[in-house]
Structure formats: structure tokens, C-alpha cells
């Protein structure tokens, strides 16, 4: 199944090595990645109130389906 294009507000999962991190897409940064890949700014928290950002192409994170999350 083809992955859908990420949208602002999507909850996503990416990895620090083997550690999964949950974050939220805050902005489509445009085709700034290698080979013109779109980058997405993802904001995430590590410990209460410690907010960080990463900018990743869509291949490097997965969108969390809110329906599956509720189940």
C-alpha cells in the first residue's frame, strides 16, 4: 500500500537508533532534502516540557493512524 503524503498535525513515529520517538508534523519544509526530497519539521518532547525538532523526509518516519492508536 502506498504511504499517504504527511500533513501538518499528523502524529508520527521515527527512530533514534532503535528507540522509537513519537512526534507531530508542524510544517512541510519543501524540497530541501537530498535529491529534492520533501522535508517535514517534526516537533517532539523528551521529558515534560523539553521540546525538540527534527526535519526528516517522509521515508524516515511513519504516520500513526489515529484509529489504530485508539484501538
Amino acid at each position, binding site marked *: 500500500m502506498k504511504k499517504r503524503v504527511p500533513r501538518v498535525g499528523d502524529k508520527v513515529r521515527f527512530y533514534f*537508533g532503535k528507540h522509537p520517538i513519537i512526534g507531530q508534523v508542524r510544517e512541510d519544509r519543501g524540497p530541501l532534502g537530498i535529491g529534492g526530497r520533501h522535508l517535514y519539521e517534526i516537533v517532539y518532547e523528551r521529558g515534560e516540557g523539553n521540546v*525538540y*525538532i*527534527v*526535519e526528516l523526509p517522509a521515508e*524516515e518516519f511513519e504516520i500513526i493512524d489515529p484509529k489504530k492508536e485508539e484501538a
Partner: protein
Amino acid sequence: MPSTALLQWRGARAAVLDEIEAAHALVGGTGLGRRYATQQLNRAYALLLSSEFQGLCRDLHSECVTVIVASTPAATQALSQAQYLWGRQLTRGNPQSGAIGSDFGRLGVVFWDEVCALHAQHQRRRELLDELVTWRNAIAHNDFDPAVFGPNPTLHLVQVRAWRRALNLLAEAFDSVMYNYLTGLLGAAPWPP
């Protein structure tokens, strides 16, 4: 070929700024009303110019970080990228020359030294950038310090155009500096030459 950030500066970002130029030309008449209207347009133009230049700098920084991070082990890429982006002033702040130098400096380049080494006029253009940001802040906060702006601060179109010309040349220089720096650092061109 330049970075995507520079292509966007020359393309979509320039088009946005040109719209203000076009609006300026449409304000007709020669009376006092026109002077008030164009003054507001000139201030809007300065705000937009500052904002678009911040966007260029932030985009170029992101492009450079992505290239550097891609040269590190896959398992640590997200981690090292988070470090480069931590506290980046260009993410939310104004494109003051100090902020630009600080953010790019974290990539290992003595940024403004390299930019100013490219052309004798770039130091003056750096001063013009900071002048624009000073105006931008005064406009955005409606706080014109009489000691800086005088009793009746007026912004002329010719001044905004001069800032824009300076930023156009700085944008080209930023691209060149980072292209050369990253090519030397990584042994390969960061984007197609």
C-alpha cells in the same frame, strides 16, 4: 545549479516581493493620501523582505544540515540532526546577521568572514541587513525609538529596494560559501554544481 533555498529565493520568494512592488505602482494620485498609503506599503514591504530572507537562511541551513547528517551513520542521523537544529535562531527569530552567523557557525564555518572574503561590499551589505531588521522590529512592534529613527520616521521605497538588492547579493554569497565549505568538508558537492 544552486541550492534549493537559493532557487526559491530567486523564484517563489521574489514573486511574493514583486507583488508588493506591483501594489505600490497601483496606488494612484499625488496627494497626501497616496503618501500615507505608500508609507504603509513600504513598511509592509520591509516586513515581508525580512521574513522572506529569514526563510531563505533557514532553508539553506536545513539543506546544509541534511547533507552533513547524511554523511553520518544511519543510526545516529536523527540524533545528530536534532543537535544541529536545537535552539536554531533562524527557526523563529529575525535574520539578524549575528543569528545567521551563529546558526551557520555551528556547522563549523566562520560564516561572515567567509562571506565578506568573497566581496569587499559584503560587509556593507551585512550592515544593510541589520538596518532592515531594526526597521522590521520597529514596524512590527510600533516602537520607533526617536534616537534611532528621528521624530518622524519615514521609510522610502528606494530604501527598501536598496535592502533588497543587498540581500539578493548576500543570498548568492551565502550559497557560494556553504557550497565551497561543504564540498571541502565532505569531499563532494552538497548540491549539483
